[in-house]
């Protein structure tokens, strides 16, 4: 059974066809790069996989379960998602945000502290998110996405706003998660800077997968 399985998936926003007949299958333990220009459908694909938006047509299965079915709630707990926003409450501190997310996902306090320390969030844990720099906000969002050790991690431009050192730390983290058996899907432009060595590269254009193969 594939970890991620899509068949003829389409997503329309009114007259806009964001995804057109996307079919793909990803096995566990893969680091996959979603490449493509602006508007190619990368973010929409991640949002559909993250159960944030329902596909217009086609089928989707994550670890054998349709996340939009009545049984889909259980599989949402195995998915970590970091979109273009950090998805954090601006008026809560980083610690309060992480604690809230941990309670939503049934994650124990020690894991929260482990992730915060891994991403070196210690100095800003008690600061409100609205006062954080872009880089720290991104790291806090990443910490939030990593809560609960997700089996599928969906990241949209995760290197945006990160300095070189944090970017390299993120790269090492993604490789480690892949080695531990997780599927990591990363949407990024070619110009995003030094990217890790991906196992597979999917290129989207006009909502379609136009190339699928080993990353160069």
């Amino acid at each position: 059974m594939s970890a991620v399985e899509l068949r003829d998936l389409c997503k329309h926003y009114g007259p806009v066809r964001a995804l057109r007949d996307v079919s793909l299958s990803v096995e566990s333990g893969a680091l996959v790069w979603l490449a493509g220009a602006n508007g190619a459908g990368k973010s929409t694909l991640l949002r559909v996989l993250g159960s944030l938006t329902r596909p217009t047509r086609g089928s989707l299965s994550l670890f054998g379960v349709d996340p939009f079915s009545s049984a889909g709630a259980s599989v949402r707990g195995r998915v970590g998602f970091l979109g273009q926003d950090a998805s954090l409450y601006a008026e809560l501190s980083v610690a309060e945000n992480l604690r809230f997310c941990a309670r939503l996902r049934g994650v124990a306090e020690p894991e929260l502290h482990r992730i915060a320390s891994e991403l070196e969030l210690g100095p800003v844990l008690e600061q409100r998110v609205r006062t954080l720099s872009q880089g720290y906000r991104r790291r806090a969002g990443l910490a939030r996405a990593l809560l609960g050790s997700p089996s599928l991690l969906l990241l949209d431009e995760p290197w945006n706003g990160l300095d070189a050192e944090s970017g390299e730390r993120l790269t090492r983290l993604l490789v480690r998660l892949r080695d531990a058996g997780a599927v990591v899907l990363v949407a990024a432009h070619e110009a995003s800077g030094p990217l890790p060595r991906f196992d597979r590269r999917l290129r989207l254009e006009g909502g379609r997968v136009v190339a699928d193969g080993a990353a160069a």
Partner: protein
Amino acid sequence: MNGLAVTRAVFAKDLLLDFRTRDRLGHMAVFALLVVSLLSIVVPASPTERLAWSPALLWVVLLFTSLLGLARSFQSETEGGALALLVQAPVDRGWVFLGKAGANALALIGVELWTGILFTVFLDVDWTHAWREALCAGLLGALGLASLGTLLSAMSVAVRFREFLLPVLLFPLVLPVLVLASSITGAALAERPVPTLWWGVFALYDWVFLSLGYLVFDYVLED
């Protein structure tokens, strides 16, 4: 994953945000103060007429004041993309709805108490013999307004003109709350017995919209 734990987490987070920013509660409190002070000037000064007018005016003020708060009940989620957190909760999203509606109901109860005090100060409303019935009507009214308001507020999150859309959708649907709550308050203030049927219909209305919100929130939260 325990749905009740998610409800508690959402409820506690919303209360924390309300107390921290004070925007929502502050705006509702000031709005109620302004409207009631204006009413004290235009409502006839005779005690009999004030007694007759007060229940309906009280609930109309509460409805408009609630609207201010309900319209902003998803503001903190939309500002930083935090709505994704609620959508991705690994439980039936109805539990998220219950947490949001519960926090809204508590905020509305606070506003009701404040408005009740304002009616005493500005319009000489005496709650001595009516406070039990008024409190029960307030609890049921808050629950009804919060259930429907939370659901409609979530539905209008991604819509242009949502400030316009919310009252247009909300007002016709909360008419039963307005009628029942003002009738019960009026009867209690006039020291008349409140028919049991009114309580039953009120509780049924709340139950219907709370259940409806629980059931459809899964679809409402997605794009």
